[in-house]
């Protein structure tokens, strides 16, 4: 048998040898069409037609769903509580396991020699983010911390402690950064944004409720004090029992220390610039007011 199989195979061979298909030649597969139940006909379907004997049941006058004959029904007896209140307004963070990250790096979909950003994750089809559905980014989850063995400079929106420990144990760097919804949409799909011809917006700072998260060194927040982050790294190494590798002596030292400015969305590109993809040029504003706005 040849190793190239035609799609369709035997089914198509049969079709080619049989006469032309018409309505007279077709029949549904046995078992797909079940006969409809006809009420009020025949010895067993007739008489009361499956409605029972007298009363509301036979006369079709039963009360509404949930009515319990006058007793306070279940759906009114139980008190209300706002479990799902505002659920559609809550921020969502798509989880990214270390298992998945390792898989992506192993299969070459993500390059560990460059800083890993949400754009890189989306380009490598590692995660799917829907900024329009209240997604605020990606969260790093510690599942797979045991097998994780890659040295990366990764920037996410949230990270669990085990995930941070696993990455730092391998000599990498984690940062958590905030992206407002518009910046997130731009970050996830940069090419359609550049094609629209708008200047790169400046990233907004986090809202009141998220500022404590992003200024905390334990979360490796991008607004946290670098010295406190260094202390937190040492403390985490002691807590999880590993030796913190010295990154300053690493060959990829420069790449590992690349971080974005809090107002910057892309590495190397400032807010206010317009990208022209057809001519491969970048247009920068020179007006003082614009510069003042974008550099603030």
């Amino acid at each position, binding site marked *: *048998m040849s*190793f190239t*199989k035609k*799609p*369709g*195979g*035997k*089914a198509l061979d049969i079709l080619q040898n049989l006469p032309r298909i018409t309505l007279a030649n077709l029949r549904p597969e046995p078992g797909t069409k079940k006969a409809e139940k006809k009420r009020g006909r025949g010895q067993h379907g007739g008489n009361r037609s499956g409605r029972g004997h007298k009363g509301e049941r036979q006369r079709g006058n039963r009360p509404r769903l949930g009515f319990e004959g006058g007793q306070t029904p279940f759906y009114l007896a139980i008190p209300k509580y706002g479990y799902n209140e505002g659920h559609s307004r809550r921020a969502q963070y798509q989880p990214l396991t270390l*298992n998945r990250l*390792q*898989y992506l790096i*192993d*299969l*070459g*979909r993500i390059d560990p020699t*460059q800083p890993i950003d949400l*754009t890189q994750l*989306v*380009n490598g089809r590692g995660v799917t983010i829907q900024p329009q559905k209240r997604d605020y980014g990606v969260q790093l989850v510690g599942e797979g911390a045991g*097998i*994780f*063995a*890659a040295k990366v400079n990764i920037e996410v929106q949230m990270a669990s402690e085990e995930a941070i420990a696993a990455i730092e144990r391998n000599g990498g760097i984690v940062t958590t950064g905030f992206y407002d919804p518009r910046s997130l949409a731009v970050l996830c799909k*940069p*090419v359609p944004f*550049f094609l629209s011809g708008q200047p790169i917006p400046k990233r907004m700072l986090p809202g009141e409720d998220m500022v404590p998260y992003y200024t905390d060194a334990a979360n490796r927040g991008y607004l946290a004090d*670098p*010295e406190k*982050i*260094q202390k937190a790294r040492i403390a985490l190494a002691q807590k999880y029992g590993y030796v913190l590798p*010295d*990154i*300053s002596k690493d060959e990829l030292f420069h790449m590992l*220390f*690349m*971080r*974005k*400015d809090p107002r*910057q969305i*892309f*590495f*190397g*590109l*400032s807010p206010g*610039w317009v*990208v022209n*993809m057809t001519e*491969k*040029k*970048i*247009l*920068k*504003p*020179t*007006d*003082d007011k614009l*510069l003042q706005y*974008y*550099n603030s």
Partner: protein
Amino acid sequence: MSYQEHARILFSLSLSLQKQTLCIPAGEAKSGILASTEEYKFVEQLISPSRVPFPPKHDGPSPFGWNPPSEVPLALPHMICRSRMHNVPASEKDVKEYLQQLTGKHLPTQVNEVTMTFRVKGHFDTALKEWLVKKGF
């Protein structure tokens, strides 16, 4: 090792050109825009690749547990190529035999000729993967 030296990225400073006026007389068109091609390489990094990249070489199984296909092509009547995401497919007859050995039962399978796939009832994905990887696909 201090983050302070590397925590901020410098913005480019522009030259002070003439400010943009509302009515630009003909012949004196000075735009308040600087064009440059130096930073375009950062834009190129953001463009998504259109083809699935080739996995880099690993010695033996990768940390995730993914095994690359064997370098030497095996002398078999049929070739099974890796799926587009470099994962492992399977062929029906062999799978049926193997599963029969494994479970001692004759398992129901359904073949879809058009899409060249088939389904087996039951949870066998890890066992099947290991078996195929051993075979060298």
